[in-house]
């Protein structure tokens, strides 16, 4: 027997090709993953988000303030979504994440402007994600000198001056120093939970099918719901252990603030863990073997990481990508956890991010139960 035979090598290569062709899902993955990645990275991801929602809290409305707002919108970085005169409302919008910026125009601004007092405007930014606001804030600085060029003519032309007629002060709320870790570390908790929870449970039911123990389980008087919940419970505990590790690291290693209530954290995480576990269980009741279950969970994981706002600003993505992102539990969890840790959101402010998760659980659990095979048919 020769040491290396091309003929024998060919035999193995040929066999691999035949098996590969039979394994449709792997084949689809090999074609599908590059396509998905191309689409996501090529079209969906944008690290220079524009048209960010802006609320203006203004005590007055004069041609000058209107020009300033117009100039802001004109930079393409802002979309005016709300005009209000209530400070409380503006704060709430920022805390809920409904707007990313609040421009505050103080009372008497126009008067001070015309007197040449160089009055200041306050631009508050939700800086939980520093990278999402950096470019927009840079654009704001540009308009200081230019916004009122057309308004300040004739006798008022001198007001333009060298330093500009007014100035804009920045306030980076929730993360004044723009520390990236504050954004990444809580987000990482969501990513890690998504990854481990889905994969671990995805394997759970498939393993029973693959090892032949499912036949036995089905022959016994166990209800599908009992099997599903029974398989989920141990992983909830595993999830909390992971959370404890990440929380400890974020507190002592990364010094991430912890503004909100601990109880809310525990409850919110439970909801998120459940959402992921139901995905895992459903994946595993649909797939035929463990390899398929792994591949399917990977299919879910990729958009979760890219489209949830974890890696790239959510508002930077085109509409269709935001729609997909909104359907993913991680998106809502990121808003919840960042809001809780950095903004100190309370129950009422957290609720808008929790009910989508609950809805998600209901829908996915329903699909899973429908697909769970009570018999071997």
């Amino acid at each position: 027997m020769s040491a290396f035979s091309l003929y024998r090598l060919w035999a193995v290569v040929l066999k691999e090709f035949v098996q590969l062709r039979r394994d449709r899902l792997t084949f689809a993955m090999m074609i599908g993953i590059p396509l998905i990645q191309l689409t996501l990275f090529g079209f969906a991801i944008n690290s220079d988000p524009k048209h960010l929602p802006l609320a203006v809290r203004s005590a007055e409305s004069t041609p000058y303030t209107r020009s300033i707002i117009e100039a802001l919108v004109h930079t393409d970085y802002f979309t005016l979504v709300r005009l209000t005169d209530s400070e409380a409302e503006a704060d709430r919008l920022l805390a809920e994440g409904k707007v990313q910026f609040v421009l505050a125009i103080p009372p008497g601004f126009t008067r001070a402007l015309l007197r040449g007092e160089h009055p200041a405007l306050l631009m508050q930014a939700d800086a939980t994600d520093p990278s999402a606001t950096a470019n927009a804030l840079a654009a704001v600085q540009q308009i200081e000198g230019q916004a009122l060029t057309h308004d300040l003519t004739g006798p008022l032309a001198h007001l333009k001056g060298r330093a500009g007629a007014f100035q804009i002060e920045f306030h980076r709320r929730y993360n004044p120093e723009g520390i990236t870790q504050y954004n990444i570390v809580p987000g990482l908790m969501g990513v890690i939970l998504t990854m481990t929870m889905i994969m671990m449970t995805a394997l759970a039911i498939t393993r029973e099918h693959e090892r032949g123990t499912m036949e036995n389980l089905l022959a016994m008087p166990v209800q599908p719901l009992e099997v599903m919940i029974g398989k989920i419970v141990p992983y909830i505990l595993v999830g909390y252990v992971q959370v404890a590790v990440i929380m400890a690291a974020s507190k002592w290693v990364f010094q991430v603030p912890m503004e909100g209530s601990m109880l809310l954290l525990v409850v919110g995480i439970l909801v998120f863990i459940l959402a992921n576990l139901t995905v895992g269980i459903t994946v595993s009741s649909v797939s035929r073997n463990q390899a398929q279950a792994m591949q399917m969970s990977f299919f879910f994981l990729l958009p979760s990481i890219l489209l949830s706002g974890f890696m790239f600003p959510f508002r930077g993505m085109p509409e269709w990508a935001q729609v997909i992102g909104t359907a993913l539990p991680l998106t809502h969890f990121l808003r919840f956890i960042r809001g809780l840790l950095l903004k100190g959101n309370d129950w009422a402010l957290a609720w808008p991010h929790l009910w989508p998760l609950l809805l998600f659980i209901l829908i996915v659990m329903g699909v899973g139960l429908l697909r769970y095979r009570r018999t071997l048919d």
Partner: protein
Amino acid sequence: MTGQEAIIDVRGLSKSFGDKVAVNQVNLKVHKGDIFGFLGPNGSGKTTTIRLLCGLLTPDAGEGQCLGLDVLAESRRIKRQVGYMTQRFSFYEDLTIRENLDFVARVYGMSGRKAAVDEALHQLGLEQRQHQLAGDLSGGWKQRLALSACMLHQPKLLLLDEPTAGVDPQARRDFWDEIHRLSGRGITVLVSTHYMDEAERCNRLGYIAYGHLVGEGSPQSLVEESGLVTWLVDGPDIHRVADELRQFPAAEQVVPFGNRLYVSGTDEKALGQALRPLMQQAAFHVERTEPRLEDVFIRLMNTSREERW
């Protein structure tokens, strides 16, 4: 020990997968305390029939009772009273022996779980090894563990799907002794098998081929009703003789067995004529013998195939 109470009584049981009919109009009656042997070639529908009986599969058609409960409407209640042992070991290899039994006992909601598990371990003789992983057990022990696990909730009916496939002769004998003990206690057993010696240990047999139940009865009656005549030929150069005999249509089955030849057929006269030349040679010893169950089953399979095509 065979009572008259029918434990399984189903009629017209059918099941298809796609356009393949796995079980076709099967009528089955098994009485209390019976050891009903279920035989048939691979893919003939044995496993499917058993799964239909224990509610793992939903029949396409058919009606009847299992343990006095309707097989269609009450499959969940049937599950509680049936012990089903799968062809492949289907308990958890990564749990210990005791943990497996504990799990089963809990699923059936047994009161006095610890005592029941202790008793099962005692009867198995596995008390010393109760903390070993089930996956480390040999094939024979796995089968005994599986049997004991599916007996734990004290079912009245045992469905065993090829329980002794790949198990050594001694373990098989022990296994069958246990089945007879259970039968003696009034438990009904339906067992599928490929082994003829096991078939002979059943008091009733059913033979299924291509989804049809083609023969049913006690081993003796199946042999008698088969109409087969079997001759035993002993002599030199048995394989050449076998080839020669196969030329005669009357010699339907010519089976070499060691140095001997079993020749069977249904046409007694023609078979006798085919064998006459051999009888006249001194080197050969030719005698009538009882047809063996295997020959009966092969004949059942062949005739059902002829009817099919």
